């Protein structure tokens, strides 16, 4: 599985309130939540982004509230991948559980800049910055987690057993 898109870059400690503010959590509709992605820290994001685009950010991405609405909103908005040095653990779990591709690479997250075109191969963890031609290798998931992702999420993995 591959993804390719334009990078939107953010800083450290992007919290789940920034990804989707709690005032919108009176709905569980992924489509509605997706219209509010990043609203409080980057009001034009949803209008500016295209389907397939990639988020690159700093450490501890997705910290704060456990709301699964956050990865769900990004996924539904059309973000194809998030690349950061480290994820907050609940966001990490939630992304795996809903089958939203995420990668950890400190070097890629540091060097890839806003607006770069990036291609990601999820099977190998290879990240290519097509703007600079540089290649990065992200940590692949352990097999236990790959099974969940391949099944299309945790509940499918349980049902497949």
């Amino acid at each position: 599985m591959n993804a390719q898109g334009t990078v939107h870059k953010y800083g450290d400690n992007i919290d789940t309130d920034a990804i989707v503010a709690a005032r919108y959590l009176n709905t569980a509709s992924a489509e509605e939540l997706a219209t509010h992605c990043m609203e409080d820290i980057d009001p034009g994001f949803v209008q500016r982004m295209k389907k397939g685009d990639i988020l690159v950010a700093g450490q501890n991405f997705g910290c704060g509230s456990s709301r699964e609405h956050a990865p769900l909103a990004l996924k539904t908005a059309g973000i194809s991948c998030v690349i950061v040095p480290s994820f907050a653990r609940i966001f990490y779990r939630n992304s795996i559980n809903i089958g939203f591709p995420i990668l950890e690479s400190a070097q890629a997250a540091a060097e890839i800049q806003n607006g770069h075109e990036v291609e990601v191969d999820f099977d190998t963890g290879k990240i290519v910055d097509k703007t600079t031609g540089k290649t990065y290798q992200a940590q692949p998931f352990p097999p236990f987690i790959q099974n969940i992702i391949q099944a299309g999420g945790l509940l499918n993995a349980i049902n497949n057993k």
Partner: protein
Amino acid sequence: MGMTMSQKILAAHAGVDVVVPGQLIMANLDMVLGNDITSPVAINEFEKAGFETVFDRTKISLVMDHFVPNKDIKAAQQTKQSREFAGKHDIQHFYDAGEMGIEHALLPEKGIVAAGDLVIGADSHTCTYGALGAFSTGVGSTDMAAGMATGQLWFKVPSAIRFNLVGKPGPFVGGKDVILHIIGLIGVDGALYRSMEFTGPGVAQLSMDDRFTIANMAIEAGGKNGIFPVDEKTLAYMAGRVNRPYKVYTADDDAEYEQTYTIDLSALKPTVSLPHLPENTRTIDEMGDVAIDQVVIGSCTNGRESDMEMAAKILKGKKVAKGVRVIIIPATQAIYRTCLRKGWAEIFVDAGCVLSTPTCGPCLGGYMGILAEGEKCLATTNRNFIGRMGHPTSEIYLAGPAVAAASAITGKITNPREIEIN
């Protein structure tokens, strides 16, 4: 190599003798928790995946607390969906307006969680129950759905950081000051993926409410869980609340910790976190003049009986500063009742405060105290992220109930020592 307290609880629930950090395990759950925001997502996933029954109707808690009493039609639809699911599956622990409290104050108070339990909750502050000596951690809605369906969940066994607490906290220093100090020390991802294990002779100097506050904010340092040893205070708290057997676990003497910090409680001062991260801490002496528009005293962090008592002690016979809105939210119906019985409710209302029924409300910018453009709030809540309590340009300062009540009187962030107690 020995195991930490968290590792021992995980091993026991995975049915194995030993676990090591990094190991992936499948473990049996004692309690699965959700609220009015996260449960609807979990229920949708549960039903979409075709599950027809829950694993155990007595081991699921659905607490309607975030936007309850329902703040609008959409919130009402979400509690309706949760209520109907609870009815269909005969969920024992379903709490709606009138019975509910903020989940992390309510579950310990009612004896629903106990020492040695393995608890997951679709709410990041589920780590609160570590104060009872449970392994308790926040998860998302899909994890909650899997937990409700199967009673099991996968975990990666965490390594641990030890906080060796020594000394006795001085006046107006409570659990909030301890945990803000620690987050300031290690940062908002200082404990990422790890257990925060609080030990040492200083633990005995902390009330159960202090311990709940400290464990509650483990997530604010990125921690997977926060946990306290079980002592006489824990056993006394659980007596008369927990009506089932529970198990007390202790860390092995040779348990391995990635790091150990010694925290001298007697050296701590009232502490404040400045916008927009909990790690931006200053002691009250370093604050300078910060005028505020609003004070919130409440939340799963600081809405317990001792927090209300501290606020009442400082606000007794006083008036809140002109132009400052002060909102006080006891975390549960039982705490609300204590406020009425002990005369604290009258103190609050006479001082010019709003006294609200239990709700998470303003803490996450839901309702009951939303901030306008550029406004500043001093809150006993747990997060001061951008836009957390309202407009993206508003600012939140975090502190304990003593600083909050003192600041309510003066209209600026104030050391409680400066207020004369009536």
